[in-house]
């Protein structure tokens, strides 16, 4: 396996680390301090509502990915399989269930508090519903609220869909949240948070779009998953998130001004040989080794769909303080995995062209039907529409049994070789790639 050196930390990384440490400390003392805890999902989350009622969010998916990165997921998954979960099903669910079976110890080594509310915001993935049904049985009697997010089946968000979601929020979800929080929702406070969200989203979009520059100052996938963290999870709408994105923005734009390449765990990349667009989540169990294969080859991911699971801000969406509930509804429906397949293909085509990509790569995840079902057709479409080399690799999010380093490395090396040859030919023919 590849030897990966220690990461170099920028200031924004330090801020994010502190944000997370504080959150987990707050969580570990939540019960003593009378803070209510809400378990909820990342895509289409309604964090501002949770925070506006002074509750603390826990995201089981984040716990799962952290367990993957800390090499704990393998045994958690096996424990879930021992209690009857099939080898075939989503490993995020099994990792989470396994973690609970093992005392619910969070990423910082402290026990996570039990939920006071299970908030099933059901966006872009049917498995979430099953996951929550299972959680509900692990915490019998806990308050549970469901927010059903309709799918953009026709490639657009309709008024009927917005009304359906707003009604659910107003008449079901918010009253349940208020009951658990023991206080009424302060709409002014919510609006203020949404205003913060919107400002942070502006900064985030500029960071993402910095990758249009040649060379790109960021890796919009491997580093992108860190950059997107605060906005996708517990911090959207907060001042500290705004501070984080301002800092990140400054760093990225400074790098761009200096013509620098992305920062990797082993320092700054020295060249940009290939610009790629990637579809699908990364693997977490071998994240660093996986990334290293790319930066060692000078491959930079200039746009990715995974960094849009928490919202398609780069396509214009912003939380709107003037219309809080409508905008939360539209936000939920606008997340990447809630787009239909033709929309996903259109978006990828747009990225490939806008970001001047040399290649398109799919990392197909065994666990995740929401992403993976249909990807092979998407790949063909992209090949036809964009005429660039497409690559396809397979792994899993958190099940180490499905990450074959040698296999993936071989495939990627052949792919990069193909990209390299194509570049040479095109340069000889005087074409721009």
């Amino acid at each position: 396996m590849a030897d990966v050196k220690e990461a170099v930390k920028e200031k924004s990384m330090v801020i994010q680390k502190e944000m997370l440490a504080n959150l987990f400390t707050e969580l570990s003392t939540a019960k003593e301090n009378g803070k209510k805890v809400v378990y909820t999902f990342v895509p289409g989350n309604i964090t501002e509502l949770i925070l506006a009622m002074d509750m603390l969010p826990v995201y089981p998916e984040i716990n799962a990915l952290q367990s993957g990165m800390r090499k704990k997921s393998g045994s958690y998954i096996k424990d879930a399989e021992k209690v009857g979960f099939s080898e075939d099903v989503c490993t995020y669910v099994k990792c989470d269930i396994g973690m609970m079976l093992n005392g619910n110890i969070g990423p910082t080594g402290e026990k996570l508090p039990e939920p006071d509310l299970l908030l099933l915001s059901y966006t872009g993935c049917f498995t979430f519903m099953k996951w929550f049904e299972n959680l509900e049985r692990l915490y019998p009697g806990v308050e549970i609220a469901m927010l059903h997010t309709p799918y953009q089946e026709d490639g657009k968000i309709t008024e009927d869909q917005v009304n359906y979601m707003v009604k659910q929020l107003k008449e079901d979800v918010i009253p349940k949240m208020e009951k658990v929080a023991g206080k009424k929702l302060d709409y002014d406070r919510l609006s203020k948070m949404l205003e913060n969200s919107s400002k942070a989203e502006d900064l985030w979009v500029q960071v993402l779009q910095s990758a249009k520059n040649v060379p790109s100052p960021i890796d919009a996938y491997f580093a992108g998953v860190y950059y997107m963290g605060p906005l996708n999870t517990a911090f959207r709408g907060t001042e500290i998130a705004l501070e984080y994105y301002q800092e990140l923005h400054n760093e990225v734009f400074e790098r761009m001004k200096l013509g620098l390449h992305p920062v990797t765990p082993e320092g700054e990349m020295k060249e940009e040989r290939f610009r790629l667009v990637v579809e699908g989540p990364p693997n977490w169990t071998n994240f660093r080794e996986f990334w290293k294969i790319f930066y060692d080859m000078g491959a930079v991911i200039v746009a990715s769909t995974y960094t849009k699971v928490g919202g398609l801000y780069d396509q214009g969406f912003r939380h709107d303080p003037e219309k809080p509930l409508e905008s939360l509804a539209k936000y939920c429906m606008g997340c990447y995995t809630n787009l239909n397949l033709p929309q996903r293909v259109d978006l990828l085509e747009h990225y490939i062209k806008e970001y001047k990509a040399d290649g398109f790569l799919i990392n197909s995840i065994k666990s995740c039907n929401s992403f993976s079902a249909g990807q092979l057709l998407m790949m063909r479409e992209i090949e036809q529409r964009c005429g660039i080399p497409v690559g396809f690799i397979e792994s899993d999010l958190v099940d180490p049994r499905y990450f074959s380093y040698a296999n993936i490395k071989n495939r990627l090396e052949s792919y990069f070789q193909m990209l390299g040859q194509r570049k040479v030919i095109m340069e000889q023919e005087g074409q721009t790639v």
Partner: protein
Amino acid sequence: MTEAPDRLKTILDECKTLAFDLNFTLAKDWKKESSDRLLVGYLPIYVPREIIHAANGLPVGIMGAGDRKQIIKGDAYYQSYICHLPRGIVEMALDTNLENFDGFLFPSICDCVRNLSGMFKLVKKGKFTRYFDYPQNFEKHIGGTFYRELIETILQDMYQINGVKVTPEKLNHAIGLYNTNRQLIEAIYNIRQDAPWRLSAVDTYHILRAGLTIPVEKHNEILQEVVTLIGEEYGEPLDNIRIVVSGSFCEQPPIGLIKSVEMAGCYIVDDDFMLGSRWIQGDMDNSTSDPLNEIVDGFLTKSAPSSAVYDVGNPKGARLVKLVKERNADGVIFCAASFCDPALLDRPELQKSCDAGGIAHINFQFHENTGQFKVIKEQAGTFSDSIKLWV
């Protein structure tokens, strides 16, 4: 009489052919008879077929290619870790099987079916393709309103093709026909509960699946005849155990699998193979001035327990245990398609409910085109023997 009546054998042969006619010949012939007729394909599990009938359409259940069609192109569209059903359906879509269909409905049961709806859009199959996103909120004025709007959108899709206006009379008529259809199916299950030897599970399967490919009027005639015929005494009971099969609501087990379970000494007294045809539990009122409201209410309040519907407050485990008791069954066989997240994620909880209710169970997974049943037969045989030992 000890032999099944000849007439029954003839009906069963007919149903067997209809059930696996993947070219849907009869449905296509039906459409040819008039230019304003529609064929609307739907995937498992449930769509309110009444609305299609009222729009002068024939709802056709597309339950996959099973082991009846060689998959050549379909496999190139799916990774190995995705269930088999969609690849068979893609194969059918790229071949001629689904030609002349006007539209397709993809119920919101999982992300594979959801994304398949997008694949149909990308390959431009049908004049309309809808992901049938039924509500997971069951409040009438919230989920109900949304559901009604969804149905109205589909009515509009159909109207744009054939210009047929759906009236309350037509909807009420359709509701009545499907009420009858479900009553007759239940009657068959009830007779089989008392005398499962009169109609095998495989034959029952063929009869129900045939109904997905023909007009409901014709299916009702078949069902009526079957009810009458199996109402007579014939055959001898075997020393079999009685089981409920759970988890096969979407991708269908191959017939060989169902047969193997029966041959291993198990009477299947209930199952979820054709759950969509039995989805609404009880009748819907077919005499109101707002039949659409009845259809909405039917979904909100009379839906069968299913992995596709959010069950907090109405847990599936308890409902399965109740079914086992009502059917006087000895055990449950959990039989889900490999890689089927909805079924397999429900399984541990359903098993727990069975344990708590003192109900024996085993489980296995299958692909619709599995060809080897030896292991399954052995497992089911051992299960049957162990139950016989204790009962």
